[in-house]
């Protein structure tokens, strides 16, 4: 007999809801059984084409009726915490899109509730599942460049060149602009590679947007002397897709990683690596996924989440980690509102 599949539901059926819904429905160990979205057009469309999936207008009813093993929360950011709290109350595990919350206070409330009533959680910082960035993590864990001295990061996309409309551009709903909605991916990588920074200084600039930043520049320092900077914008020309690059200098050489490759330059050879350049590109590192929509790393993340549900284990990219990123973001905005003053975290 076939093993029973885990039952998944989607809260908020926009672009990311569609993507996660299709992926969890394609994984061997899970299926999509319910969707909730307040928009009647979305409800009607999916009733028509996906009659096996139950459609709900609100998540409380869905959580009560659909008998879910897990939910994927893909609402606008300001609704993440209320939806997550409802999941906790119903003992439903959840994967929530990043960032965890629109502000640190709500994130802390969520974390406190989780401490009392734990469920398995994950936050959608998907760059960890991109083959190049996960390869860089492996190489850094092997101390490939020796002691890490500096790191710099750029994260750019050509997205916004006039005032944007919708929740992403309202501070109380999104929690911020290019830093909170995009650069947090790179902040997660930095914390994953090097731990939470000790201090930050930040400058932000709004030009196209009224309430949120379009440009941000942040400097960091860590406990052990490591320091670095991150430059972020969604209004940068000639970046068709979101592109992230980290340049990491160490005592033995340099590691450069972006969406396309990992390159290591070593001044002298080591046991595992020759001196000079070693490059690993996406085709070297590619592995297939259950469904390649958007990019393969979304499916890798959803698979990892389902694996943790099956083994009842806690992933490292859980809500507690999401809260740390939120703390970091709060400190960044705090510094920016005080002309780049140093903020300790």
């Amino acid at each position, binding site marked *: 007999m076939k093993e029973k599949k885990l039952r998944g539901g989607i809260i908020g059926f926009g672009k990311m809801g569609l993507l996660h819904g299709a992926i969890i429905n394609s994984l061997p160990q899970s299926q999509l059984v319910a969707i909730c979205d307040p928009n009647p057009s979305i409800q009607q469309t999916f009733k028509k084409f996906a009659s096996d999936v139950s459609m709900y207008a609100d998540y409380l009813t869905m959580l009560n009726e659909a008998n879910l093993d897990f939910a994927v929360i893909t609402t606008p950011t300001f609704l993440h915490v209320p939806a997550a709290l409802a999941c906790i109350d119903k003992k439903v595990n959840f994967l929530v899109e990043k960032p965890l919350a629109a502000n640190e206070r709500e994130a802390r409330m969520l974390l406190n509730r989780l401490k009392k009533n734990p469920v398995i959680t994950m936050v959608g910082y998907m760059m960890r599942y991109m083959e190049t960035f996960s390869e860089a993590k492996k190489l850094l864990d092997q101390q490939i460049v020796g002691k890490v001295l500096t790191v710099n990061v750029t994260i750019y996309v050509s997205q916004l060149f006039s005032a944007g409309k919708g929740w992403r551009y309202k501070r109380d709903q999104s929690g911020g602009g290019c830093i909170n909605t995009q650069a947090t991916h790179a902040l997660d990588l930095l914390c994953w590679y090097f731990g939470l920074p000790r201090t930050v200084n930040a400058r932000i600039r709004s030009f196209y947007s009224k309430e949120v930043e379009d440009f941000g520049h942040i400097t960091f320092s860590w406990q052990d002397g490591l320091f670095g900077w991150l430059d972020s914008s969604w209004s940068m020309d000639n970046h068709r897709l979101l592109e992230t690059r980290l340049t990491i200098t160490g005592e033995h050489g340099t590691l450069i990683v972006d969406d396309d490759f990992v390159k290591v330059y070593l001044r002298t050879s080591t046991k595992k690596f020759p001196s000079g350049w070693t490059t690993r590109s996406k085709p070297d590192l590619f592995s297939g996924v*259950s469904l390649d929509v958007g990019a393969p790393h979304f499916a890798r993340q959803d698979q990892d989440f389902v694996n943790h549900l099956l083994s009842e284990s806690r992933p490292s990219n859980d809500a507690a980690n999401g809260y740390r990123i939120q703390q970091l973001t709060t400190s960044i905005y705090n510094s920016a509102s005080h002309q780049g003053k140093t903020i300790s975290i």
Partner: protein
Amino acid sequence: MPNVFPDPIIFGHNQFFGINHLSAARGAETEEYFQDPKKIVDLIAFAYNLGAHGLMLSTHEKAVAIATEIVRRPTLKKNLNVYILLPYMAKYVKKANERGLVNMVFELLKTGGLSTNFRIGLKGSVGVLTKDPLALLKTLIDLELLPFKKLNLRAVFLHNSLTDLTAGLKLKDIFPFFVDYIARKHQVAPGFCTLTSGLSMKFIYESGLEKPLIMAPFNPAGFQMSPSQKECEWALKRFPAKVIAMSVLAAGYSNPEKAASYIHSLPAIRSVIFGSSNPQHIEKNIATFRKIFR
């Protein structure tokens, strides 16, 4: 349905739009070089003269200028077989990020540079359209195809994101609808692009579509082949289809001989698509693949 056998060698479009699956930076440089549509069509003509009688075009904004330039050249206008891939997804993803998914659709229908004729052709108001998803899809397809109608259209492919979303969500009726609408209304062969052929070819088959036109990655490295190279090869044997292999060179990672010998080992594949901005590479690739399709 128009029974189309795809050209053995189809020239790809990615390099013209700054798309490079190996390097975004290289993609942006190539896009800079191809700012002038005349330069683009010169390269298309070069590939055509060497035997690439097909051209794939995404419905990118820039493709409109390419289409206009092709129409100006009589030989290409008459003989070049054009395969359309729609929609250009990055445009919609960005718009959805800016406006939200539902607002995006509303705004697209309200404005989107629609011609007067097209507006007249729009049946019912925007509000009515959003209540009827198929009418909405028809309108979006018409809108995307409008600038390319003067070309010698051979097939229209559904973008891989939409094919794979539909297959992942197991949405009934979408594939049969697409096939029927493209064939009847636009009198062109419908096709499906997929990055998950192991799954999508099965679902297309289960939707009752026989011998569909498929475009999917097949290369010796297994790059972009999901769920796995093995499952994609299995689907190729199990579900009869007319298959165009894409990413054959794994974004420039495999050499043409190795790629051609792999494609040759898969009898279901009778056609390849590749793009390049380098005339020497184009010449070499076309010559290599022509040998296996003799």
